[in-house]
């Protein structure tokens, strides 16, 4: 068990496991599942926000939103690459997403119903994601941790942009303020659910923590998010839709109500308001693009020796980046 001991020692020292290092099968499987789920979430997460790019109400906001959704595609790319270092291909991962065998974050199974949702997703959803992800920068698997460092930096930027959009809207018309409040009302509880089920109901957490994949419990992170968000909501002038929300001097934290865990279960099971829509959109894009991917493969095959005319073609333009 020399390999196992070495692995354990790296974990114990909070050092990084690298792709060529030996690792237990369970560790590899858990990482693949988690990184893939994270990658899929970035890709599926393009849809709810992408829904409003075409209708962004100012050119500045259109540019910000388009760039943000593009960043999500980029995050998907890094994460698929990180996952590939564990010995699984992007094609396989995409197939696991499309067949429903791997999940993505349930938050993206809620619809975006107004432009305020763009701000709310930045503020609450990216905010919750950051709470979840900052500890992952110190996760035990090297490529994942390094991807997370880059992603977290960009996510913080997105979160500030989202909050800034809401602040601007709150300084606008009565209708705009109502739009912000309505949006926050819809996204508050689903955001809390982003931290997963309560610790008592989270079966895989202990092993993930032992392996240094996870660094904090679901409930710890949820509390941190609530504590961080309440003052921001006050500053914004919106009401969080939870009558139980109140400062607990003794705990030094905010108390808050219980999310509707049955709803979370239903959404994870596939019965959320947008599960079918999100997967159908992704599948349609994948299917519509099949002939293009085939053409690119065929062209590369020509380039690799059989068709010199085509080789000239490749030289005629700069590098494809």
């Amino acid at each position, binding site marked *: 068990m020399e390999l196992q001991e070495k692995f354990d020692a790296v974990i114990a020292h909070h050092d990084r496991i690298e792709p060529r290092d030996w690792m237990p099968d369970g560790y590899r499987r858990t990482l693949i599942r988690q990184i893939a789920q994270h990658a899929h979430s970035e*890709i599926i997460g*393009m*849809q709810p926000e*992408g829904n*409003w*790019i*075409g*209708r*962004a*109400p*100012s*050119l*500045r*906001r*259109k*540019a910000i939103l*388009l*760039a943000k*959704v*593009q960043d999500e*595609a*980029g995050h*998907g*790319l890094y994460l*698929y690459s990180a996952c590939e270092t564990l010995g699984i291909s992007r094609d396989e991962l995409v197939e696991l997403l499309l067949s429903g065998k791997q999940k993505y974050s349930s938050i993206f199974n809620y619809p975006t119903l107004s*432009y305020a949702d763009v701000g709310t997703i930045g503020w609450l959803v990216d905010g919750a994601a950051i709470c979840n992800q900052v500890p992952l920068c110190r996760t035990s698997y090297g490529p994942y941790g390094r991807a997370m460092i880059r992603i977290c930096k960009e996510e913080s930027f997105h979160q500030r942009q989202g909050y800034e*959009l809401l602040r*601007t*809207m709150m*300084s*606008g*018309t009565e*209708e*705009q303020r109502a739009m912000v409040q309505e949006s926050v009302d819809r996204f508050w509880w689903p955001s809390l659910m982003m931290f997963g089920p309560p610790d008592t109901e989270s079966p895989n957490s202990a092993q993930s923590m032992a392996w240094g994949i996870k660094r904090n419990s679901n409930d710890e992170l949820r509390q941190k998010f609530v504590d961080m968000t309440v003052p921001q909501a006050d500053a914004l002038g919106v009401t969080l839709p939870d009558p139980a929300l109140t400062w607990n001097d003794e705990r030094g934290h905010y108390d808050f109500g219980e999310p509707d865990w049955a709803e979370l279960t239903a959404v994870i099971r596939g019965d959320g308001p947008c599960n079918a829509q999100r997967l159908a*959109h992704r599948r*349609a*894009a994948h299917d*519509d*693009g*099949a*002939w*293009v*991917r*085939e*053409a*690119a*493969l*065929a*062209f590369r095959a*020509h380039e690799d020796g059989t068709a010199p*005319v*085509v080789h*000239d*073609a*490749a030289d*005629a*333009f*700069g590098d*494809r*980046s």
Partner: protein
Amino acid sequence: GADLATYCLMLGDDALVLSQRLAEWCSRAPELEEDIALANMALDLLGQARLLLARAAAADPAVVPALPSGSPVPAEDALAFFRDAGQFRNVRLAEVPNGDFAHVVVRLLLFSTARLATLDALRASVDTVLAAVAAKGVKELTYHRDWAGRWFVTLAQGTEESRRRLLGALDSSWPLRAELVTAHPVERSLPGVAADQSAVAGQVDAVLDQVLAVAGVDRPGKAPLAGVGGRTGRDGRHTEHLSRLLAEMQSVARAHPTGRW
């Protein structure tokens, strides 16, 4: 001022409207890499549009639609969101619906070869704002053209299916090309300011011929798409598609004419 404003609207609306179409690809491209590339080009064009619309407003404030008093909407947004289709000056190539990936490749090839040559010439414009926009834009458009050229050749020589689709897209887009390189009276009225489209047209033809040759594709023989009573997109007479594109694009802004974003 009025001619310069119109000229800036022509260049700005081309960029704005095509950017809107490119952004529709977001989350729909055949590969993540192409999703990112298309978003990138949409962002480049959107950036150009903002500078050009602002320049149009500065050159002639009369082009900016009037909004309710106290509205905080900046000029670039008033122009983008509160003009009707007939006030847009973009070429019709920019506004037609997306079609498949072959169509976006062909549209970008036709559009970016022409715009690159135009911006290249505009670097020498006596209007320093236009010259600055052009200097930045040349780098961006070079990437767009190379991306489109690469994919044009790839699809032409990939599979039978990809070649069939590419030729179909080329055939249907080609009639929309002429408008890009046809000199407009507004351009002719701005010597030294506007690019000389007759010079541009020659360059564009040379580049396209090179790409077509490399791809092994014949130059289509199709006639330019007719205008209506001799007028085209450049004169505000568009296809039926532009007003639908604008209905979507402008819906939120128009629902809140005094909103802050």
